[in-house]
């Protein structure tokens, strides 16, 4: 099922300059992820896997090396273009859900939609997505602190999907959930992958990594 490469890293290095000396978080990482793949990035704490995910999500720029997303070199893109890439091509799911506390569940999902389309959703897409992840209308009016962890992560998944991104990046998506809810979320992600989305998931839980087609191991900033 996987097709052409959607993400390509060439010798990507990320160095954090600290007073005590430079920390090399990523050391000449090269790899290719194909369109429609389900990849798990594994490694112990501090191995550089979140740094890697931030690179893939264009939240951060490499110190050196090139990152191509859909054949576009991100090095040549300015902040505005990178932001717009995050908005249109990439969906982000975080360990801590990261919903906006001042907005209701519905508005949280609507937020990226409004950023992209500059007008309210009239097609009912936001409501449909919330229904798909099991959040009903009444629940959608609640603010994030009023929802359980599982519900928040479902809202976060709906938010990640609202602009129909090609790539879904997940940073320990089940890390703050109980095992049953975690399993439900993983099944939801598997289903999304089956429908053709590229999913990259960062985890140190082998049970989660089991869902992936390929496992990339990171240790000391290197892909092994």
């Amino acid at each position, binding site marked *: 099922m996987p097709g052409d490469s959607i993400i390509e890293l060439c010798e990507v290095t990320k160095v954090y300059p600290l007073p005590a000396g430079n920390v090399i978080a990523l050391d000449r990482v090269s790899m290719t992820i194909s369109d429609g793949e389900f990849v798990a990035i594994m490694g112990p704490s501090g191995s550089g896997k979140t740094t890697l995910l931030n690179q893939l999500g264009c939240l*951060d720029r490499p110190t050196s090396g090139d990152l191509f997303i859909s054949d576009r070199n991100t090095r040549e893109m300015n902040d*505005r273009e990178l*932001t717009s890439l*995050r908005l249109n091509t990439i969906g982000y799911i*975080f360990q801590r859900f990261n919903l*906006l506390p*001042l907005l209701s569940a519905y508005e949280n999902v609507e*937020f990226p939609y409004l950023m992209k389309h500059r007008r309210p959703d009239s097609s009912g897409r936001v409501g449909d997505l919330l229904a798909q992840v099991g959040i009903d209308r009444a629940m959608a009016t609640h603010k994030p602190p009023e929802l359980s962890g599982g519900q928040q992560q479902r809202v976060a998944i709906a938010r990640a999907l609202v602009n129909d991104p090609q790539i879904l990046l997940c940073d320990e998506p089940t890390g703050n959930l109980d095992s049953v809810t975690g399993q439900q979320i993983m099944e939801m992600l598997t289903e999304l992958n089956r429908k053709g989305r590229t999913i990259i998931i960062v985890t140190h839980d082998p049970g989660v990594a089991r869902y992936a087609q390929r496992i990339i191991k990171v240790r000391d900033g290197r892909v092994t």
Partner: protein
Amino acid sequence: MKDIILQISLRSIRIHFLRSVLAALGIVIGVVAISSMGMMGANMTLSVTEELSKMANIVVITAASGSGGGPGGGPGGFGGASDKKISEEEFRDIQKIAEKYGLVYVVYRESDTIKVGDVKGRSTIYGLDEDVMRQIFTLSDGVFPKSTSSVLVGPTLAERYDLKIGSRIKIGDEDEGITNTVKVVGILEERGMSNDINSDMAIIGSEKLFTGIYGNEGEYDQVNLILNDINDSQKARADILDKMNRKETTVNVQDSSRMLESITSSLGTMTTFVMAIAGISLLVAATSIFNVMMMSVTERVREIGIMRSIGAQKSEIRRMFLYESIVLGVVGATIGAVLALAIGWVVVLAMVGSTDYFFLPESLWYIPFAMLVGIAVCVLSGVYPAWRAAGLDPVEALRAE
């Protein structure tokens, strides 16, 4: 159209209600201070202008200090304008030019020592034609003088020396042995400050009475022109200056519009100064808005990180914080404007003594002006925090607790 960024700003203000109210309070105070001071100045100017325009029909002609003295003038030349007189011949010329505009008359004037009973003092003594007196003065008591020993006195002078009809005044310095006693036959009505004759503190007698005491007949201290039409003021002035000063500068002409201009301009300067002091309160308000906005940015670093990571542009983050400061500014300025109407009214009543001009546009426009300044101050105070928020690194921001 639903602006979700504006929604977030409004909700953020709502959950920090007390803090936002306190920040906006600074703007309220600033707007009230600036607009009430501005309105006070405007009302003062309007009331002085009205007062002065009552004498806008008076043109005063005096001898130019520089003329005629020449090299032979000697040390006496330092005496200044008051030493120079207008001659009888010059007066005739002026009369020829100016009589078409209105009444032209001469004024003798001297400042001298006076003594009423045992009380000594100083006063200005005017010598005027009897007919002119009748035309320019109104009496509150008594009659116009008919002899060379009877005088009119101003109301302030009468009050100070307890002068009544029939009271006697000694004019001149007793030590020098030159005194003349005159009798009060009439008391003038109050006339206020004027640039032709300040009669409230003066003794006014006939020309003969004056020249009898001081001599100098036919050498006048000033020539006054009372215009029939106020609009001729500039024209009459130009006409007199043009014809009288053709060869050399012999006369100065002062019309009240110039005096009005200078008084209005000093009042304007004063108003600006007082408003600038009031503006300091806005500076304090700016600090407090700035502080609140910085707090807001610090508290919401993580939120900013989330918004950036899911695709909000820097401009949207900037907008979110600018909205917050604009809302604080608009709310503060609006409340300030309403209060300024009430407080400004009280200030004007207390300082100017009359609120006749309060609702004129010249006075009320200080309210929208102060509102605009207040809102501008808010926006400016929000610029740096908004810029800081937008410039945050998304990865760093997401890591914040």
